[in-house]
């Protein structure tokens, strides 16, 4: 037992003290925070910058209404009437001015707009938020005003009619309801990705740990004191503890960031950060799946490490194992689209995919309670099997150097171990 602790301590300290560990532990949250912050800040900046749009108005009535819209009054869009003249040549001029960056773009309002004619927006940058969230509502509102007046309605009625209808989505949960702005899907995706990254990261760490005795030529010294399974278990727990440490630091930093972001003015509009669909139960399941995923894959990576003689060789041999981690990554979109489908259900039960896909389904609220003990039982059975096979490969593989075993030889190791 003390020997096992000694191995765990050594494996843990050897990694936690390395520069590599300190750098990644501190830098990863910086990147993550940047990845979350920059799009939001950019969107805010985008909204603040005024966009000059020239308006070619064949009706002669819409432009005046555009100047009364919220987007114009708040300065987000600056509509300018286009110079008069032949429409074709005016459009040609505006096109050139847009290319010369004197204009963000131009609107073409046809004479028959009230009869269903299409308004066209031409611009250099036709980002979704600009067109969908700013230009389209402004134009719709302006055209409605003109239309209402044409029907002979008074100003107040016209304004009421021009009001866009707000449709908001709510997610139904056990606790009640939460305003939904896509945060559930994004959270599910992120948690799946985090498990994917963790399994790859700590799996690769385990791979290097498993070759360490060979590359340092310490196999025999260690084996004259320890049984191979003690060494493998010690390494698995040591590297796992490294993973937990890193996760804890990251979660801590992320938590601080969210608390700060929740109160910061710049994020006041970011509804996404509030109402995060992550409860204590989700975190618990996440940790559980992280652990089973880690043990499952570290066992496989350790076997690969035991077959290889050098780190280079190990990194070639680990490709099949890594493929097994990558498959669920590509399946995530399928599950996000239809978390309740039979395909998602079955895929998320396959032990090698469970750590990544099951958390996705859970966050999406597509998991039945009875599934949880089922998948964890499957996980544990698979882990025990992988550990048994891996232990046998490890035991024989440790003393092998130079020649890589063939597949039949591997089977013999496992059977006679």
């Amino acid at each position, binding site marked *: 037992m*003390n*020997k096992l602790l000694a191995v765990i301590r*050594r494996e843990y300290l050897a990694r936690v003290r390395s520069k590599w560990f300190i750098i990644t532990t501190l830098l990863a949250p910086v990147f993550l925070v940047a990845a979350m912050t920059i799009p939001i800040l950019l969107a805010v900046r985008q909204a603040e910058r005024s966009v000059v749009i020239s308006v070619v108005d064949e009706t002669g009535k819409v432009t005046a209404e555009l100047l009364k819209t919220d987007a114009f009054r708040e300065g987000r869009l600056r509509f300018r009437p286009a110079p008069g003249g032949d429409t074709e040549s005016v459009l040609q001029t505006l096109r050139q001015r847009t290319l010369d960056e004197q204009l963000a773009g131009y609107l073409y309002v046809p004479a028959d707009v009230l009869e269903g004619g299409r308004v066209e927006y031409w611009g250099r940058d036709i980002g979704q938020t600009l067109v969908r969230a700013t230009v389209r509502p402004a134009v719709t509102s302006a055209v409605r005003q003109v239309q209402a007046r044409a029907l002979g309605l008074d100003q107040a009625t016209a304004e009421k009619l021009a009001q866009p209808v707000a449709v908001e989505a709510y997610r139904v949960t056990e606790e009640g309801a939460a305003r939904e702005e896509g945060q559930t899907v994004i959270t599910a995706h992120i948690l799946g990705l985090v498990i994917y990254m963790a399994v790859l990261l700590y799996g690769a760490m385990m791979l290097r740990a498993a070759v360490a005795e060979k590359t*340092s030529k*310490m196999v*025999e*010294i260690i*084996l004259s*004191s320890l049984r191979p399974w003690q060494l493998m278990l010690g390494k698995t727990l040591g590297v796992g503890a490294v993973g937990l440490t890193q996760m804890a630091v990251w979660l801590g930093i992320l938590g601080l960031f969210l608390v700060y972001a929740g109160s910061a003015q710049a994020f006041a509009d970011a509804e996404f950060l509030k109402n995060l669909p992550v409860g204590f139960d989700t975190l618990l399941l996440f940790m559980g799946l992280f652990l089973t995923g880690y043990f499952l894959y570290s066992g496989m990576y350790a076997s690969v490490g035991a077959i290889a003689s050098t780190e280079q060789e190990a990194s070639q041999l680990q490709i099949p194992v890594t493929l097994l981690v990558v498959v669920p990554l590509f399946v995530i979109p399928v599950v996000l689209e239809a978390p309740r489908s039979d395909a998602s259900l079955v895929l998320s039960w396959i032990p090698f995919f469970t750590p990544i896909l099951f958390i996705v389904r859970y966050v999406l609220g597509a998991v039945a309670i009875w599934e949880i003990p089922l998948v964890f039982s499957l996980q544990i059975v698979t882990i025990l099997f992988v550990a048994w096979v891996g232990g046998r490969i490890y035991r024989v593989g440790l*003393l092998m150097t130079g020649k890589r075993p063939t597949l039949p030889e591997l089977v013999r190791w496992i059977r006679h171990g």
Partner: protein
Amino acid sequence: MDNNLAIQLENIYKAYGTKVAVEGLDMRLPRATICGLLGPNGAGKTTTIRIILDIIGPDRGSVEVLGGPLTPETRDRIGYLPEERGLYAKMKVLELLTFLGELKATPRRLATERSADWLERLDLADWADKKVDELSRGMQQKVQFISTVLHEPELLILDEPFAGLDPLNVDTLKEIVLEQKRRGATVLFSTHNMDQAERLCERVVMIKDARKVLDGTLAEIKRQAWLEGQRQVLLAVEGEGAFLDDRSLVRSVEDRGTHKAVSLQDGVEPQRLLEAAMRSGTVVHRFEVSEPSLHDIFVTRARARE
């Protein structure tokens, strides 16, 4: 089970695929002795050592170490220096030694204390907080040697312990080996170097082509060789002694400064060498027939049955 034996092997057989590494090996090593395990490269020395330590299992035969089968507790009473030298390169020396001590069930603090003492004794105290890969190969070898004696084992198994060391360090380690024996430990070490074996060992086991060809105390083995007619001539002559170049008489000559140690070809009587000296008119100051050196016995045995 015999508690007076440190190692007891019976009829060990081990093959890798079709290649037989050890065949029919018996070995009984009494406690508190120093025993040399000799043999040419590929004879099966390292396999034998690995079988004793249960790093690999024999295909057949029984192994008893320190009075019983090898249990995890027995393991902690053995110190092992493998032929393949290596240490975790990125670890600090003192921490690594403490770790290796712990692997032998030495309490952490005690392991650190003893490691520091040993580093002091082997002139490595200044390196205690350096990483292993900053040390020279010789220093690393000494560190590895420390790890084998740190837990005060009852049995020391050293695979080529002196290879690659300078003479000063060889002497230091030899002194430690002798000290371990005085402490009551049994030492089994493999070597190619017959002079070292001859100076250090009380017993010798020689393996050749997977089989044991010699086993006994040094005195027994020399007497046996004498009875088989093997001789060595200690010779002091004036001049170069051109007659020594006759390959039909002389196998090899070792110059020992004051005299030459001459090994004769198989079946050659020492008298014939003296006759040859007389014929060449050389003045002979010393002519002494003695027991063959271990080196000669080794060479004779290694050539036999070829």
